[in-house]
């Protein structure tokens, strides 16, 4: 058969596409469950990290033990139905604040103290950044924070995942004089003009640092009513 003929070429392409397509579809289908499992376990690991705990090997058991309650609230601070863990923050963030489903995780640490964990999601320089912020039971003091990213520059923006960055948030206040004023990330040596608490950004990672700042502001705003209701308890 003439290997340079059009018929051969077309048949070759069709066979190739079918073979590769089947191979990829088969791989994706057969690995789906394991992958989802890993994604869920990784999410649990990140949530646990925000509590300043080291994730253990059996992260599911640890999660079940530490996280005592998880629920969704709306922007009025009322509880709504739904599975908090299954909510995709990336989709929620695109909706107007009033329509968002806002997940809240309640954790009880070994010393019996209650923490509220709020997930946050925003944009860095190259792609999405996200994190989990754990608040003390006064709904204002940050107990711990965990940030992660998809593709920030190693050594620069990617440093937001490091303890050196996230531990700066510990003890900062989300409320000032009864008003929600999320912690800002600013250039070292500067301070935000609105009087909010602040931490130092990463030199060379300016856009990512600003992204973290904007992410905290955007994602905490809809929680205002919920956090106020805890504070008024």
């Amino acid at each position, binding site marked *: 058969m003439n290997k340079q003929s059009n018929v051969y070429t077309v048949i070759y392409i069709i066979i*190739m596409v079918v073979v590769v397509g089947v*191979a990829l579809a088969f*791989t994706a289908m057969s690995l789906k469950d394991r992958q989802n499992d890993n994604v869920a376990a*990784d999410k649990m690991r990140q949530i646990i990290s925000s509590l300043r705990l080291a994730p253990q090997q059996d992260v599911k058991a640890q999660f079940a033990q530490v996280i005592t309650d998880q629920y969704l609230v709306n922007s009025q601070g009322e509880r709504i139905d739904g599975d908090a863990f299954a909510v995709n923050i990336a989709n929620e963030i695109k909706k107007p604040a009033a329509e968002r489903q806002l997940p809240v995780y309640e954790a009880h640490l070994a010393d019996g103290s209650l923490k509220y964990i709020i997930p946050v999601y925003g944009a860095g320089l190259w792609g999405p950044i996200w994190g989990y912020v754990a608040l003390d039971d006064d709904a204002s003091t940050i107990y711990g924070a965990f940030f992660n990213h*998809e593709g920030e520059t190693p050594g620069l923006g990617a440093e937001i995942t490091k303890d050196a960055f996230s531990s700066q948030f510990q003890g900062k206040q989300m409320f000032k004089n009864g008003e929600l004023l999320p912690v800002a990330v600013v250039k070292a040596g500067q301070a935000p003009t609105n009087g909010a608490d602040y931490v130092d950004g990463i030199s060379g990672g300016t856009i990512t640092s600003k992204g973290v700042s904007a992410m905290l502001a955007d994602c905490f705003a809809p929680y205002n009513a919920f956090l106020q209701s805890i504070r008024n308890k």
Partner: protein
Amino acid sequence: MAEKIKNKTVFFNPFSKNNPVIVQILGICSALSVTAKLEPAIVMGLSVIAVLAFSNVIISLIRNTIPTSIRIIVQLVVVAGLVIIVSELLKAYAYDVSLQLSVFIGLIITNCILMGRLEAFAMANRPWPSFLDGVGNGVGYTIILVIVAFFRELLGCGTLLGFQVVPNCFYQAGYVNNGLMILPPMALIVVACIIWVHRSYNKDLQEN
């Protein structure tokens, strides 16, 4: 016997005399982006070795059936398919590694070394030499990546693989990390320095 010697050259030549990065100047784009730290550079190097070796073998196996007019497309489909399968497997069985690799997976597909080796070697050679050629070129690429990343992380952050190696007393004495080393332009300059040193040792590579 003749074949043995040939296999040896095929495998070891890309380490130095015919290095894909510093002699053929291929794959510079990824050499810039992943060498700010040592760890991603090593992971990227290993993934390129794997993908390059297997795509070389696959293309070599089907080289006699590929119509010339669409050979580049076929090569690209094989590489892209392979990279996706590797990435899916990593997500299922080595999730931590796949998180590290997330951005680099795409970079492997566009790595010019892959297309270069498929077109120049695998299309004309049997599977076993093609495999050796793939591994050899992958290793040659990794060596350069590791050297560049070593200097960039050491001078830019004072760490190696995340561990602090520049002692604290240096910083107290006024030593400051060179932030410029982390930025992409310095990778080019480090690569250029390597080429300079390499060529001064290998006089036959110098142009008149």
